[in-house]
C-alpha cells in the first residue's frame, strides 16, 4: 500500500468511529476486487482474448485476424498485411453468494497490449505483446474480535487483498509458408509479480496498524508455438477453412517470497522483513489449444475451439492451504459465430457493424471441497469497423456462471464487458498514386 494511502487511513481512523472505518475500507474495494476463486494458487487463469474472440466464446487459434490481432496463435502473425496496435480493457461485475450471504465485487483492468508488424506482407511478421496469464484480484474485508486481558474484547478490521499474478512479455514471429500453411514461434519472459497484502486496523488505541505484504517474484523463459492450416474453396468458391493449433510449453519459475511489514522503527516508518526470503520453484503447466473456423462465405463464419491446460502438474511452495483447494487439468471448449453485414456496403447504420455470439464451457483448474469450479459463459459481441481505415473497435458482453454455493462454496454470477481497440494501418508502403 502506498504511504499516502496509509496516512489517509490513519487520518480516517482518528476521525471516524470503528464501524465507519470498516465501511471506509469496504468502500475502498470498489472496482478493485474480482473473482473469489483468484484467491487460490497464483491466481485465476486469464482469458487472453480480444473482445472479438470473447464475443464468440472461443480461444482464438483459428479465427482469421485480419481486423483484430490475436495473441493465441503465433502462426497468424505471418499472415499480417497491416501493422497494428491493439489493447483491451475489461469491466467485470461479480455477484458473489454462498449459503449465508452475498455481495458484489467489481474489477476494472487493462487486459493486454500487442503490437504487430509485417516484415514481408502476408509472409513474415512479428508480434510484441504483454499480457497476463493468471491474475489475483480478490479482496476480503472482515471484522473479527479477540478476547484480551480482563475479558475485554478488541475488534479489528482486516483488509486482505491479492494483486498481480503471472505475466508474459512476448516477442514472436509468424511465417506463412504458403497460402495453406503458416507457423509461428513466440519466446517470452514469463514472470510472476504477486502481492498478497493484509492491512489490519484496531478498534482500540495501543494497537499499531499492521500493513503486511507478501510479495512473490520470479521469472523464466516461456515458449509458445503455433500452426495454421488454411483451405480455400473447399466446398464453394468463396469458403475458407482454418485449422489452428497452439502449444505453450510448461515452465519452472525460480521465485522468491519476501514478507515485509511496515513498522515504526527508530522514529520513522520503515519496511522490515518478517522472515528470511523464501525461495522455491513454481511449476507452470503446459497448454495446448486447437480449433476450427469455417467461413462458408464472405458474410459469416463459425468456430469451434478447445483449450487444455495441465494445471494438475502445477505446484508452488508458496501456496497456503486455503481450505484444501487443489489444482486439476483444465479444459475449455467454445463455439461461436460471426456475421459481417458491413461487407455489404449498406448505408444503414446497423449494417455497418459486425455481430457475434457464442457459448463456452470451462471445467476450471480448481477443485475446492471436492467440487470442480467450472464456468459456463454466454457471449455476444459487436464490432465497429472504421469506414476509412482497417481499424476496429470490438466489444463483447458475457454472462458467466461460475462455481456453486453447495458445500460451503461460492457461486459467482458474472457480467463482463470487454472492449478492445485495434488500430491498423499500412506502414513502409509507398503509395503509387496520389
Amino acid at each position, binding site marked *: 500500500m502506498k504511504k499516502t494511502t496509509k496516512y489517509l487511513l490513519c487520518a480516517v481512523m482518528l476521525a471516524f468511529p470503528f464501524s465507519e472505518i470498516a465501511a471506509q475500507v469496504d468502500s475502498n474495494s470498489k472496482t478493485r476486487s474480482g473473482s473469489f476463486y483468484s484467491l487460490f494458487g497464483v491466481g485465476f487463469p486469464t482469458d487472453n482474448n480480444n473482445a472479438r474472440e470473447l464475443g464468440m466464446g472461443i480461444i482464438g487459434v483459428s479465427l482469421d485476424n485480419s481486423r483484430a490481432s490475436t495473441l493465441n496463435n503465433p502462426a497468424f502473425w505471418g499472415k499480417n498485411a497491416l501493422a497494428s496496435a491493439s489493447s483491451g480493457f475489461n469491466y467485470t461485475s461479480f455477484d458473489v453468494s454462498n449459503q449465508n450471504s452475498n455481495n458484489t465485487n*467489481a474489477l476494472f483492468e487493462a487486459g493486454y497490449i500487442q503490437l504487430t508488424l509485417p516484415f514481408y506482407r502476408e509472409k513474415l511478421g512479428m508480434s510484441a505483446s504483454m499480457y497476463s496469464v493468471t491474475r489475483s484480484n480478490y479482496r476480503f*474485508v472482515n471484522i473479527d474480535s479477540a478476547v484480551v486481558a480482563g475479558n475485554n474484547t478488541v475488534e479489528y478490521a482486516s483488509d486482505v487483498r491479492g494483486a498481480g499474478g503471472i505475466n508474459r512479455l512476448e516477442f514472436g514471429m509468424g511465417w506463412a509458408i504458403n497460402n495453406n500453411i503458416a507457423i509461428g514461434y513466440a519466446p517470452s519472459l514469463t514472470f510472476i509479480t504477486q502481492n498478497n497484502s493484509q492491512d489490519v486496523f484496531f478498534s482500540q488505541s495501543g494497537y499499531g496498524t499492521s500493513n503486511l505484504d507478501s510479495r512473490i517474484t520470479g521469472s523464466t523463459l516461456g515458449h509458445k508455438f503455433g500452426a495454421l492450416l488454411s483451405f480455400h474453396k473447399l466446398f464453394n468458391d468463396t469458403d475458407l477453412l482454418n485449422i489452428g493449433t497452439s502449444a505453450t510449453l510448461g515452465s519452472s519459475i525460480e521465485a522468491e517470497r519476501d514478507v515485509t511489514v511496515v513498522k515504526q522503527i527508530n522514529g520513522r516508518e520503515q519496511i522490515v522483513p518478517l522472515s528470511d526470503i523464501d525461495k522455491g520453484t513454481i511449476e507452470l503447466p503446459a497448454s495446448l489449444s486447437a480449433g476450427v473456423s469455417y467461413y462458408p462465405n464472405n458474410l459469416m463464419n463459425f468456430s469451434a475451439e478447445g483449450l487444455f491446460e495441465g494445471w494438475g502438474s502445477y505446484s508452488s511452495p508458496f501456496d497456503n492451504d486455503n481450505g484444501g483447494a487443489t489444482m486439476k487439468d483444465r479444459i475449455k471448449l467454445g463455439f461461436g459465430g460471426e456475421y459481417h453485414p458491413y461487407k455489404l456496403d449498406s448505408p444503414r447504420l446497423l449494417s455497418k457493424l459486425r455481430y457475434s455470439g457464442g457459448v463456452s464451457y470451462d471445467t476450471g483448474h480448481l477443485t475446492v471441497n471436492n467440487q470442480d469450479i467450472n464456468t459456463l459463459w454466454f457471449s455476444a459481441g459487436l464490432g465497429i469497423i472504421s469506414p476509412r481505415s482497417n481499424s476496429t473497435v470490438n466489444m463483447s458482453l458475457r454472462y458467466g456462471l461460475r462455481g456453486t454455493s453447495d458445500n460451503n462454496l461460492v457461486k459467482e454470477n458474472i457480467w463482463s464487458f470487454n472492449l478492445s481497440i485495434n488500430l491498423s*494501418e499500412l506502414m513502409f508502403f509507398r503509395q503509387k498514386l496520389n
Partner: protein
Amino acid sequence: MNKANKGFLTFCIPLLILFFISSCEDPGSVGSEFADRPNLTFDTLLVSETQKLSYVGYSGLLSFIPLGEFSDPLFGDITTLGLLKPIRTPSVPDSIEIAESFDMKLELKFDSLQTYGDTLSQSGFSIYEVISDWRGSTLRLNDDIQYGDLVGSFTVGDEDSLVIEVSEQWKEKYKSYYFNEDANADSAYNYEFQGLAIVSNQPNSKISFTTVTQSSFLLINGIDSDTTDTVNIPLNDWGFTLQRDVEPEPEGTFPIHTTLEGLLEVTIPDSLLKVQNNSKNIVRADLVFFEARDILDSTLPPNSIRLGVNILNADIVETFEPEYEYQFGSRDFVGTRGETESSFQIGITNYVNNLIFGDQDIQKLIIGIGSSSGAIRSSLLYDENGPEEYRPRIIITSLEN
C-alpha cells in the same frame, strides 16, 4: 497515425469514458473463510532481571509543598520540612503608599483533595527563620536545612486555608530588605535572607499539601489608620525536604515513590525477545506490573489514606543527570491502569520493535512515578520474586495467519 485512425481514436474515447462510469459495488466477505485471515496471538515473557534503585529527588519549585509527618507502616516514617520565602518587592497598586508600619502575615492554602495519612487528625507546626543557604532550583530531599528563631506556629485540621501571624522580629528583618533602595538590595536579599521553615511538631499523623500558586504572604498596610489595604506578597522561592526512616520491604515487592526514593531497573530479555519474535508481526507490546493491592490495603492505619497512583512510567535508562530525567524529563513510555484494576500496563511497542528490528541497544528500562508536582505518592509493586501470577511480564500481541 493517419487521419482516419486519429478520427477513429476520437470515436473510441467516449467509449472508454463510458467504461469508467461504473455502478456502486458492495464488496464484502463472502468466501473469506478460505483466505488466511489474521488472528491475534498473545505471548508472555516474564521479566527475570531487575534491580531496585533509589535516587534523591529534586524538591524545590514544585507545585505543592508537603507539610507534616506520617508513619506509614509500609513506606516508612515520613517527615517533611517546608521552605518558603517571599519576594522582596511585591507589586503594589499606585494608589497605595506602603507605610513602614505595615503588618505581615502568612497565608497558606491547602489542597483539600490531597492528604497523606490520618484525615481526621490535626497537625501542629512551628515556623522558624532559616539560617542556612538554600535555593529552590537545586534543593534536594535530603538537603540539611538549619533554622533559628521561632517565627510563628499554627495547627491545621481540615481547613482549606490558614492565615498565620509571624513574629515582629522577622517582619522587621523583612522590612529592612523591603525598604532597602541600595543598588545591591536584591542581591543582598537573595543571599542573606533565607525565608522560613515550616517544621512539623511531633507527633503529627498526616501530611497536607500547600498549593504554591495560592499561598502567599500578606502585607497589611495602614494598620494605624481606620482603613487598611492588603497586598499579596507571592513566594519568591519554595521547596521542602523529606526524611523517610525505616521503610519495610515485603518480600517479592518493590516500592515506588514520586520522590524517586523507589525505582526499579528492568532488564528486557533482549535476546530471548529477538529469538521468539523476529518473525512475528507484533502489533502491541506491553510491560505489565501488578500492584500489591492486598499489602497496600492491609497496612493502612484507620482513617488514613495514601495518594493514589494512576500512571506508571518507563524510561530508557539515562546516564546523565538521571534524577532530573526521571523526575522532570519527558516520559519515554507512560503506562496506565491495565485491564485489571491492580495492574499497570505500559505500552512499549515501538521500543520492542526498535530492539528487534532497529538500532535500540539499551535493554534497561527504569520503572517509576517520578513527578514534578511535589505530591508524595507511593505504591508497592510485585517484582520477579512475587507470586507467579503477579510477576512483571512483557505481553506481546502479534498477528498471525
